[in-house]
Protein backbone atom coordinates (compact mmCIF):
# COMPACT_ATOMS: atom_id res chain seq x y z
CA UNK A 1 0.00 0.00 0.00
CA UNK A 2 1.05 3.55 -0.63
CA UNK A 3 1.00 5.74 2.45
CA UNK A 4 -2.79 5.41 2.69
CA UNK A 5 -4.54 6.39 5.87
CA UNK A 6 -5.54 3.52 8.11
CA UNK A 7 -9.18 4.27 7.28
CA UNK A 8 -8.50 3.69 3.61
CA UNK A 9 -6.77 0.42 4.40
CA UNK A 10 -9.71 -0.62 6.57
CA UNK A 11 -12.08 0.29 3.77
CA UNK A 12 -10.15 -1.77 1.24
CA UNK A 13 -10.03 -4.75 3.61
CA UNK A 14 -13.77 -4.43 4.21
CA UNK A 15 -14.37 -4.19 0.47
CA UNK A 16 -12.17 -7.16 -0.32
CA UNK A 17 -13.95 -9.31 2.28
CA UNK A 18 -17.34 -8.14 0.96
CA UNK A 19 -16.44 -8.89 -2.65
CA UNK A 20 -15.04 -12.31 -1.73
CA UNK A 21 -18.18 -13.14 0.22
CA UNK A 22 -20.78 -11.87 -2.24
CA UNK A 23 -19.14 -11.51 -5.65
CA UNK A 24 -16.70 -14.41 -5.81
CA UNK A 25 -13.51 -12.32 -5.69
CA UNK A 26 -10.77 -14.93 -5.44
CA UNK A 27 -9.03 -14.96 -2.03
CA UNK A 28 -5.41 -14.07 -1.44
CA UNK A 29 -3.46 -10.92 -2.08
CA UNK A 30 -4.51 -8.93 -5.06
CA UNK A 31 -1.17 -7.17 -5.53
CA UNK A 32 -1.83 -3.46 -5.09
CA UNK A 33 -5.46 -3.90 -4.30
CA UNK A 34 -6.65 -0.60 -5.67
CA UNK A 35 -5.30 -1.28 -9.12
CA UNK A 36 -5.93 -4.97 -9.38
CA UNK A 37 -8.16 -5.72 -12.37
CA UNK A 38 -10.05 -8.46 -10.53
CA UNK A 39 -10.83 -6.11 -7.66
CA UNK A 40 -12.16 -3.40 -9.96
CA UNK A 41 -14.14 -5.86 -12.05
CA UNK A 42 -15.91 -7.10 -8.93
CA UNK A 43 -16.52 -3.54 -7.75
CA UNK A 44 -18.19 -2.84 -11.09
CA UNK A 45 -20.33 -5.98 -10.75
CA UNK A 46 -21.46 -4.88 -7.32
CA UNK A 47 -22.16 -1.30 -8.44
CA UNK A 48 -24.20 -2.63 -11.34
CA UNK A 49 -26.20 -4.94 -9.07
CA UNK A 50 -27.03 -2.09 -6.67
CA UNK A 51 -27.76 0.34 -9.54
CA UNK A 52 -24.93 2.65 -8.50
CA UNK A 53 -22.82 4.63 -10.94
CA UNK A 54 -20.43 2.00 -12.33
CA UNK A 55 -16.99 3.49 -11.75
CA UNK A 56 -14.90 0.52 -10.57
CA UNK A 57 -13.74 2.80 -7.76
CA UNK A 58 -14.36 2.28 -4.08
CA UNK A 59 -16.38 5.50 -3.72
CA UNK A 60 -18.50 6.59 -0.76
CA UNK A 61 -21.82 5.32 -2.14
CA UNK A 62 -20.29 1.88 -2.73
CA UNK A 63 -18.74 1.74 0.73
CA UNK A 64 -22.04 2.82 2.31
CA UNK A 65 -23.77 -0.21 0.87
CA UNK A 66 -20.92 -2.51 1.87
CA UNK A 67 -21.33 -1.39 5.48
CA UNK A 68 -25.04 -2.18 5.69
CA UNK A 69 -26.08 -5.32 7.62
CA UNK A 70 -27.20 -7.94 5.11
CA UNK A 71 -27.77 -11.54 4.09
CA UNK A 72 -24.70 -13.75 3.59
CA UNK A 73 -25.89 -15.30 0.31
CA UNK A 74 -23.80 -14.15 -2.71
CA UNK A 75 -25.49 -11.59 -4.99
CA UNK A 76 -24.22 -13.17 -8.14
CA UNK A 77 -23.40 -16.71 -9.26
CA UNK A 78 -23.16 -19.98 -7.31
Amino acid at each position, binding site marked *: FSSSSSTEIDDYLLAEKYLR*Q*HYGLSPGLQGSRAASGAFQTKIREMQK*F*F*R*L*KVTGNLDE*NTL*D*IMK*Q*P*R*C*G*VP*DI*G*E
Partner: protein
Amino acid sequence: YNHFPRRLKWERNDLTFRITNYTPDLKSTDVDRIIRRALNVWSAATPLTFRKLREGIADIMISFGSKEHGDFNPFDGPNGLLAHAYPPGRDIGGDVHFDEDENWTNDQSDYNLFIVATHELGHALGLAHSSDPGALMYPAYSYNEGFPLAEDDIDGIQDLYGPNPNGKKLKPRPDAPTRCDPELTIDAVTDLRGETYIFKDRFFWRLHPQFPEPQQSLTRSTWPFLPNQVDAAYENPDKDTMFVFRGIRMWAISGYDLVKGYPKYIHKLGLPKRIRKIDAAVYIKDTGKTLLFSDEEYWSYNEAKGTMDTGYPRSIETDFPGIGDEVDAAAYRSGYLYLFNDKLQFEYSYISRKVVRIMRANSVLNC
Protein backbone atom coordinates in the same frame (compact mmCIF):
# COMPACT_ATOMS: atom_id res chain seq x y z
CA TYR B 1 -35.88 -10.59 -9.03
CA ASN B 2 -33.28 -13.32 -9.68
CA HIS B 3 -33.15 -17.10 -9.42
CA PHE B 4 -30.12 -19.20 -8.67
CA PRO B 5 -28.13 -20.61 -11.61
CA ARG B 6 -30.02 -23.53 -13.21
CA ARG B 7 -33.25 -22.18 -11.65
CA LEU B 8 -32.87 -24.49 -8.65
CA LYS B 9 -36.31 -25.25 -7.13
CA TRP B 10 -38.10 -28.00 -5.20
CA GLU B 11 -39.67 -30.61 -7.46
CA ARG B 12 -42.63 -31.14 -5.11
CA ASN B 13 -44.86 -28.69 -3.25
CA ASP B 14 -45.26 -30.45 0.11
CA LEU B 15 -42.06 -29.58 1.94
CA THR B 16 -40.88 -30.29 5.46
CA PHE B 17 -38.96 -28.07 7.89
CA ARG B 18 -37.33 -28.54 11.27
CA ILE B 19 -35.97 -26.02 13.78
CA THR B 20 -32.92 -27.82 15.18
CA ASN B 21 -31.97 -25.27 17.87
CA TYR B 22 -33.15 -21.94 19.31
CA THR B 23 -31.71 -18.52 20.04
CA PRO B 24 -31.64 -17.43 23.71
CA ASP B 25 -32.76 -13.97 22.54
CA LEU B 26 -36.41 -15.06 22.22
CA LYS B 27 -38.78 -17.59 23.80
CA SER B 28 -38.72 -20.80 21.73
CA THR B 29 -42.49 -20.53 21.31
CA ASP B 30 -41.94 -17.09 19.77
CA VAL B 31 -39.35 -18.52 17.37
CA ASP B 32 -41.78 -21.31 16.40
CA ARG B 33 -44.50 -18.74 15.75
CA ILE B 34 -42.17 -16.44 13.77
CA ILE B 35 -40.90 -19.23 11.53
CA ARG B 36 -44.45 -20.49 10.90
CA ARG B 37 -45.53 -16.90 10.02
CA ALA B 38 -42.58 -16.57 7.61
CA LEU B 39 -43.44 -19.88 5.91
CA ASN B 40 -47.08 -18.81 5.65
CA VAL B 41 -45.99 -15.75 3.66
CA TRP B 42 -44.54 -17.99 0.94
CA SER B 43 -47.48 -20.42 1.10
CA ALA B 44 -49.84 -17.50 0.53
CA ALA B 45 -48.08 -16.73 -2.76
CA THR B 46 -47.58 -20.31 -4.07
CA PRO B 47 -48.98 -23.88 -3.91
CA LEU B 48 -46.20 -24.76 -1.42
CA THR B 49 -47.05 -26.30 1.99
CA PHE B 50 -44.71 -26.78 4.97
CA ARG B 51 -45.00 -29.60 7.49
CA LYS B 52 -43.00 -29.40 10.74
CA LEU B 53 -40.71 -32.28 11.78
CA ARG B 54 -39.37 -32.57 15.34
CA GLU B 55 -36.62 -35.08 14.47
CA GLY B 56 -34.80 -36.51 11.48
CA ILE B 57 -33.90 -34.71 8.28
CA ALA B 58 -36.29 -32.16 6.84
CA ASP B 59 -36.01 -30.37 3.50
CA ILE B 60 -35.45 -27.08 5.31
CA MET B 61 -33.28 -27.40 8.44
CA ILE B 62 -33.27 -24.16 10.46
CA SER B 63 -30.58 -23.41 13.03
CA PHE B 64 -28.71 -20.68 14.93
CA GLY B 65 -24.92 -20.68 15.03
CA SER B 66 -22.02 -18.26 15.29
CA LYS B 67 -18.67 -17.82 13.45
CA GLU B 68 -17.74 -21.23 11.91
CA HIS B 69 -20.86 -23.31 12.42
CA GLY B 70 -20.23 -26.41 10.33
CA ASP B 71 -20.68 -25.34 6.70
CA PHE B 72 -17.30 -23.66 6.09
CA ASN B 73 -19.22 -20.45 5.57
CA PRO B 74 -18.55 -18.66 8.85
CA PHE B 75 -20.51 -15.77 10.28
CA ASP B 76 -18.72 -12.62 11.38
CA GLY B 77 -19.95 -11.64 14.82
CA PRO B 78 -22.47 -8.87 15.50
CA ASN B 79 -23.88 -6.98 12.44
CA GLY B 80 -22.41 -7.51 8.96
CA LEU B 81 -23.68 -10.94 7.92
CA LEU B 82 -26.99 -11.68 9.66
CA ALA B 83 -27.91 -15.05 8.18
CA HIS B 84 -27.63 -17.18 5.05
CA ALA B 85 -29.48 -20.01 3.34
CA TYR B 86 -28.88 -22.57 0.64
CA PRO B 87 -30.90 -23.02 -2.58
CA PRO B 88 -33.21 -26.03 -2.96
CA GLY B 89 -31.47 -29.42 -3.05
CA ARG B 90 -30.60 -32.42 -0.90
CA ASP B 91 -28.45 -32.35 2.27
CA ILE B 92 -27.57 -28.74 3.04
CA GLY B 93 -29.83 -27.57 0.18
CA GLY B 94 -32.73 -25.50 1.54
CA ASP B 95 -31.13 -25.07 4.97
CA VAL B 96 -31.31 -21.73 6.81
CA HIS B 97 -28.68 -20.50 9.30
CA PHE B 98 -29.02 -17.45 11.55
CA ASP B 99 -26.00 -15.73 13.12
CA GLU B 100 -26.41 -16.20 16.87
CA ASP B 101 -24.11 -13.24 17.48
CA GLU B 102 -26.92 -10.95 16.36
CA ASN B 103 -29.63 -9.78 18.74
CA TRP B 104 -32.82 -11.37 17.39
CA THR B 105 -36.05 -9.56 18.22
CA ASN B 106 -39.78 -9.74 17.60
CA ASP B 107 -39.97 -6.00 16.85
CA GLN B 108 -37.76 -3.25 15.44
CA SER B 109 -35.54 -2.79 18.47
CA ASP B 110 -32.85 -4.82 16.73
CA TYR B 111 -32.74 -7.41 13.93
CA ASN B 112 -36.29 -8.61 13.39
CA LEU B 113 -36.30 -12.39 13.08
CA PHE B 114 -39.50 -12.51 11.00
CA ILE B 115 -38.10 -10.21 8.31
CA VAL B 116 -34.78 -12.08 8.08
CA ALA B 117 -36.43 -15.51 8.23
CA THR B 118 -38.83 -14.66 5.41
CA HIS B 119 -35.91 -13.42 3.32
CA GLU B 120 -33.78 -16.52 3.99
CA LEU B 121 -36.69 -18.85 3.28
CA GLY B 122 -37.00 -17.08 -0.06
CA HIS B 123 -33.49 -18.37 -0.80
CA ALA B 124 -34.39 -21.84 0.52
CA LEU B 125 -37.21 -21.92 -2.06
CA GLY B 126 -35.06 -20.76 -4.98
CA LEU B 127 -34.99 -16.95 -5.01
CA ALA B 128 -31.60 -15.22 -5.24
CA HIS B 129 -31.12 -11.55 -4.36
CA SER B 130 -33.12 -8.82 -6.08
CA SER B 131 -31.76 -5.43 -7.15
CA ASP B 132 -35.08 -3.77 -6.31
CA PRO B 133 -34.49 -1.83 -3.06
CA GLY B 134 -38.18 -2.24 -2.24
CA ALA B 135 -38.09 -6.02 -2.51
CA LEU B 136 -37.80 -8.37 0.46
CA MET B 137 -35.07 -10.23 -1.44
CA TYR B 138 -32.88 -7.12 -1.59
CA PRO B 139 -29.60 -8.08 0.10
CA ALA B 140 -29.48 -5.31 2.75
CA TYR B 141 -31.57 -5.56 5.92
CA SER B 142 -34.41 -3.12 6.55
CA TYR B 143 -37.33 -3.33 8.94
CA ASN B 144 -40.89 -2.83 7.76
CA GLU B 145 -44.30 -3.63 9.18
CA GLY B 146 -47.04 -5.40 7.25
CA PHE B 147 -46.96 -7.99 4.49
CA PRO B 148 -43.26 -8.36 3.60
CA LEU B 149 -43.43 -9.35 -0.09
CA ALA B 150 -43.23 -6.73 -2.83
CA GLU B 151 -44.55 -7.35 -6.35
CA ASP B 152 -41.01 -8.24 -7.37
CA ASP B 153 -40.79 -11.05 -4.78
CA ILE B 154 -44.21 -12.43 -5.70
CA ASP B 155 -43.38 -12.44 -9.41
CA GLY B 156 -40.08 -14.20 -8.68
CA ILE B 157 -41.50 -17.01 -6.56
CA GLN B 158 -44.53 -17.53 -8.83
CA ASP B 159 -42.19 -17.76 -11.79
CA LEU B 160 -40.85 -20.92 -10.09
CA TYR B 161 -43.98 -22.46 -8.53
CA GLY B 162 -47.04 -20.64 -9.91
CA PRO B 163 -49.68 -18.86 -7.78
CA ASN B 164 -51.56 -20.13 -4.75
CA PRO B 165 -54.35 -22.35 -6.17
CA ASN B 166 -56.87 -20.77 -3.78
CA GLY B 167 -56.47 -17.63 -5.89
CA LYS B 168 -56.15 -15.51 -2.77
CA LYS B 169 -55.26 -11.97 -3.88
CA LEU B 170 -52.13 -10.70 -2.16
CA LYS B 171 -51.59 -7.06 -1.26
CA PRO B 172 -47.88 -6.63 -2.03
CA ARG B 173 -45.72 -4.07 -0.30
CA PRO B 174 -45.56 -0.94 -2.50
CA ASP B 175 -42.65 -1.02 -4.93
CA ALA B 176 -39.88 1.54 -4.94
CA PRO B 177 -41.10 4.74 -6.64
CA THR B 178 -39.84 5.26 -10.19
CA ARG B 179 -37.96 8.52 -10.44
CA CYS B 180 -39.08 9.63 -13.90
CA ASP B 181 -42.75 9.00 -13.31
CA PRO B 182 -44.34 12.22 -14.64
CA GLU B 183 -46.89 11.97 -11.83
CA LEU B 184 -44.14 11.85 -9.20
CA THR B 185 -44.74 13.93 -6.07
CA ILE B 186 -42.10 14.11 -3.37
CA ASP B 187 -42.28 14.10 0.42
CA ALA B 188 -39.15 16.09 1.25
CA VAL B 189 -35.94 17.45 -0.26
CA THR B 190 -32.76 18.67 1.36
CA ASP B 191 -29.13 19.32 0.65
CA LEU B 192 -26.65 17.32 2.70
CA ARG B 193 -22.90 17.80 2.53
CA GLY B 194 -23.04 18.98 -1.07
CA GLU B 195 -25.48 16.33 -2.31
CA THR B 196 -29.25 16.51 -2.72
CA TYR B 197 -31.52 14.02 -0.95
CA ILE B 198 -35.07 13.57 -2.26
CA PHE B 199 -37.41 11.56 0.01
CA LYS B 200 -40.41 9.61 -1.28
CA ASP B 201 -42.34 6.93 0.63
CA ARG B 202 -39.81 4.60 2.34
CA PHE B 203 -37.00 5.62 -0.01
CA PHE B 204 -34.70 8.47 -0.85
CA TRP B 205 -32.69 9.33 -3.92
CA ARG B 206 -29.19 10.68 -3.39
CA LEU B 207 -28.02 13.03 -6.12
CA HIS B 208 -24.38 13.96 -6.47
CA PRO B 209 -23.70 17.10 -8.56
CA GLN B 210 -21.19 15.23 -10.73
CA PHE B 211 -23.30 12.09 -11.29
CA PRO B 212 -26.46 12.39 -13.40
CA GLU B 213 -27.84 9.09 -12.06
CA PRO B 214 -29.31 9.39 -8.54
CA GLN B 215 -28.91 6.40 -6.22
CA GLN B 216 -32.08 5.08 -4.59
CA SER B 217 -31.98 3.60 -1.09
CA LEU B 218 -34.35 2.67 1.70
CA THR B 219 -34.37 5.49 4.26
CA ARG B 220 -34.11 3.06 7.15
CA SER B 221 -31.20 1.20 5.61
CA THR B 222 -29.17 4.37 6.07
CA TRP B 223 -30.84 5.82 9.19
CA PRO B 224 -32.53 2.90 11.03
CA PHE B 225 -33.80 5.25 13.77
CA LEU B 226 -35.94 7.28 11.35
CA PRO B 227 -39.59 6.42 10.60
CA ASN B 228 -40.35 4.73 7.29
CA GLN B 229 -41.59 7.95 5.71
CA VAL B 230 -40.65 11.60 6.35
CA ASP B 231 -42.70 14.80 6.00
CA ALA B 232 -39.90 17.37 5.62
CA ALA B 233 -36.16 17.79 5.90
CA TYR B 234 -33.55 20.55 5.80
CA GLU B 235 -29.83 20.96 6.38
CA ASN B 236 -28.14 23.61 8.48
CA PRO B 237 -24.66 23.43 6.92
CA ASP B 238 -23.23 25.70 9.61
CA LYS B 239 -24.05 22.96 12.13
CA ASP B 240 -23.37 20.11 9.62
CA THR B 241 -26.74 18.76 10.70
CA MET B 242 -29.79 17.55 8.79
CA PHE B 243 -33.19 17.92 10.48
CA VAL B 244 -35.96 15.47 9.55
CA PHE B 245 -39.65 15.85 10.46
CA ARG B 246 -42.42 13.27 10.80
CA GLY B 247 -45.68 14.17 12.52
CA ILE B 248 -44.94 16.14 15.68
CA ARG B 249 -41.40 14.78 16.05
CA MET B 250 -38.09 15.91 14.62
CA TRP B 251 -34.69 14.18 14.37
CA ALA B 252 -31.29 15.89 14.11
CA ILE B 253 -28.75 13.82 12.16
CA SER B 254 -25.03 14.34 11.79
CA GLY B 255 -23.80 12.02 9.02
CA TYR B 256 -25.36 8.70 9.96
CA ASP B 257 -25.72 9.41 13.67
CA LEU B 258 -28.66 10.75 15.63
CA VAL B 259 -27.68 13.86 17.57
CA LYS B 260 -27.95 13.38 21.34
CA GLY B 261 -31.29 14.43 22.79
CA TYR B 262 -33.29 13.76 19.62
CA PRO B 263 -36.01 13.07 18.56
CA LYS B 264 -37.71 16.15 19.99
CA TYR B 265 -41.16 17.61 19.54
CA ILE B 266 -41.47 20.22 16.78
CA HIS B 267 -43.09 22.57 19.30
CA LYS B 268 -39.63 23.03 20.88
CA LEU B 269 -38.94 25.29 17.90
CA GLY B 270 -41.68 27.61 19.11
CA LEU B 271 -44.51 26.30 16.94
CA PRO B 272 -48.02 26.37 18.50
CA LYS B 273 -49.37 23.06 19.78
CA ARG B 274 -52.11 23.13 17.14
CA ILE B 275 -49.42 22.32 14.53
CA ARG B 276 -49.30 18.52 14.12
CA LYS B 277 -47.06 18.26 11.04
CA ILE B 278 -44.45 20.16 9.06
CA ASP B 279 -45.05 19.81 5.31
CA ALA B 280 -41.77 21.36 4.16
CA ALA B 281 -38.67 23.01 5.59
CA VAL B 282 -35.82 24.90 4.01
CA TYR B 283 -32.78 26.77 5.35
CA ILE B 284 -32.08 30.06 3.57
CA LYS B 285 -28.30 30.39 3.75
CA ASP B 286 -28.34 34.08 2.76
CA THR B 287 -30.54 35.07 5.71
CA GLY B 288 -29.78 32.34 8.26
CA LYS B 289 -33.51 31.70 8.56
CA THR B 290 -35.35 28.38 8.19
CA LEU B 291 -38.82 28.48 6.67
CA LEU B 292 -41.25 25.92 8.06
CA PHE B 293 -44.41 25.26 6.04
CA SER B 294 -47.52 23.70 7.55
CA ASP B 295 -50.88 23.55 5.77
CA GLU B 296 -51.49 27.04 4.36
CA GLU B 297 -49.11 28.93 6.67
CA TYR B 298 -45.37 29.22 7.18
CA TRP B 299 -43.04 30.32 9.93
CA SER B 300 -39.51 31.78 9.91
CA TYR B 301 -37.07 30.33 12.45
CA ASN B 302 -33.88 32.19 13.37
CA GLU B 303 -31.22 29.45 13.48
CA ALA B 304 -28.59 31.61 15.19
CA LYS B 305 -30.91 32.72 18.03
CA GLY B 306 -32.92 29.50 18.12
CA THR B 307 -36.21 31.41 18.15
CA MET B 308 -39.18 31.97 15.89
CA ASP B 309 -39.24 35.33 14.14
CA THR B 310 -42.12 37.60 15.16
CA GLY B 311 -44.94 38.37 12.71
CA TYR B 312 -45.49 34.71 11.82
CA PRO B 313 -47.26 32.58 10.72
CA ARG B 314 -47.91 34.18 7.37
CA SER B 315 -50.02 32.91 4.47
CA ILE B 316 -48.19 30.89 1.81
CA GLU B 317 -50.53 32.10 -0.92
CA THR B 318 -49.97 35.75 0.00
CA ASP B 319 -46.19 35.62 0.18
CA PHE B 320 -45.58 33.13 -2.62
CA PRO B 321 -48.28 34.00 -5.18
CA GLY B 322 -48.76 31.52 -7.97
CA ILE B 323 -47.60 28.33 -6.24
CA GLY B 324 -50.89 27.36 -4.62
CA ASP B 325 -51.70 27.33 -0.93
CA GLU B 326 -49.62 24.39 0.30
CA VAL B 327 -46.07 23.09 -0.11
CA ASP B 328 -44.90 19.42 -0.13
CA ALA B 329 -41.17 20.14 -0.06
CA ALA B 330 -38.77 23.07 -0.38
CA ALA B 331 -35.14 23.68 -1.33
CA TYR B 332 -32.97 26.80 -1.73
CA ARG B 333 -30.11 27.35 -4.16
CA SER B 334 -28.29 30.47 -5.34
CA GLY B 335 -31.06 32.94 -4.55
CA TYR B 336 -33.91 30.74 -5.75
CA LEU B 337 -36.45 28.93 -3.61
CA TYR B 338 -37.75 25.64 -5.11
CA LEU B 339 -41.24 24.94 -3.82
CA PHE B 340 -42.82 21.57 -4.63
CA ASN B 341 -46.57 21.29 -4.79
CA ASP B 342 -48.04 18.02 -6.03
CA LYS B 343 -46.48 17.12 -9.42
CA LEU B 344 -44.98 20.57 -9.98
CA GLN B 345 -41.92 22.45 -8.82
CA PHE B 346 -41.97 26.28 -8.69
CA GLU B 347 -38.72 28.21 -9.00
CA TYR B 348 -39.28 31.34 -6.93
CA SER B 349 -36.81 34.21 -7.17
CA TYR B 350 -36.00 35.45 -3.68
CA ILE B 351 -34.78 38.73 -5.11
CA SER B 352 -37.66 39.62 -7.46
CA ARG B 353 -40.11 37.82 -5.14
CA LYS B 354 -41.97 36.01 -7.89
CA VAL B 355 -42.23 32.63 -9.57
CA VAL B 356 -39.86 32.65 -12.57
CA ARG B 357 -40.22 29.03 -13.75
CA ILE B 358 -42.53 26.04 -13.35
CA MET B 359 -41.19 22.48 -13.88
CA ARG B 360 -42.27 18.93 -13.17
CA ALA B 361 -41.35 17.74 -9.71
CA ASN B 362 -39.27 14.89 -11.20
CA SER B 363 -36.95 17.37 -12.93
CA VAL B 364 -35.11 17.56 -9.59
CA LEU B 365 -34.05 13.94 -10.39
CA ASN B 366 -32.64 14.90 -13.81
CA CYS B 367 -35.70 13.51 -15.61
